[in-house]
């Protein structure tokens, strides 16, 4: 797993950092997935940008929030339980590039959330060299 996709605002981050490359992160993710506080995701990357798919079964799309702030993508929401109780879940990712804010899209279908985030086209400028 690449470093930039590590989930942030993770209370175990210090441990993760100490453990370095050891896949403790997998273990950590698995634990929180079990508790229902952490949606599982598939992340796809290309030249054009990122696509994130998250499992949000049983979540009312109105209670689902997708926020992008300073290159951090946060997916959070509220899952209603059978007994009327609620579980909140949240997961954040560091994004590896500058994004095109206006073209971010999010859609929910059959309990799967898909967020597509296009990369901002890099502005290439040639700098003229003055002859002195």
């Amino acid at each position, binding site marked *: 797993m690449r470093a930039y996709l590590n989930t942030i605002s993770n209370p175990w981050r210090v441990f993760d950092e100490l453990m370095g490359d050891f896949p403790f992160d997998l273990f950590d993710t698995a634990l929180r997935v079990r508790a229902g506080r952490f949606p599982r995701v*598939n992340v796809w990357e290309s030249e*054009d940008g990122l696509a994130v798919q998250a499992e949000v079964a049983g979540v009312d*799309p109105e209670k689902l929030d997708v926020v992008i702030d300073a290159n951090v993508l946060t997916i959070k929401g509220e899952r209603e339980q059978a007994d009327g109780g609620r579980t909140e879940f949240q997961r954040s990712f560091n994004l590896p590039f500058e994004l095109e804010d206006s073209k971010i899209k999010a859609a929910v279908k059959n309990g*799967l959330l898909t967020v597509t985030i296009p990369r901002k086209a890099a502005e290439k400028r040639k700098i003229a060299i003055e002859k002195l």
Partner: protein
Amino acid sequence: MSLMKRSEQNVQKVNRVELTPVSRVQEGEEAYTLTVELPGVSEKEIELTLENKVLSITAENTLETFKDYTLVLNELPEVRYRAAFDLPEHVDTDSIKAAHKNGLLILTLPKREEVKPRRIAITAG
């Protein structure tokens, strides 16, 4: 060629991990409500069968693949959900209802008339 394709598809199906979906049952006065979490499963991929008071659910999820993208973080497996529920004798199997919403399959299992709670009027003597 088509045979080849079909066998490839079969292999893919066999390779799916089988999982028991998360489910819960609630008892109401009139009916039981059975909720099964099936994220990423579309309606037509859900198979519901009832045989000898055993309600079976089989479903397969569909994950989107993005063309020209590479998968960099993979936590969602392609799975086949499978679950079977032994229905109690007093469930009226003819009027079971199923709904599909937000990745949840919600089944309403009405109780037979004779087991529903009834208020008995008291006549003044």
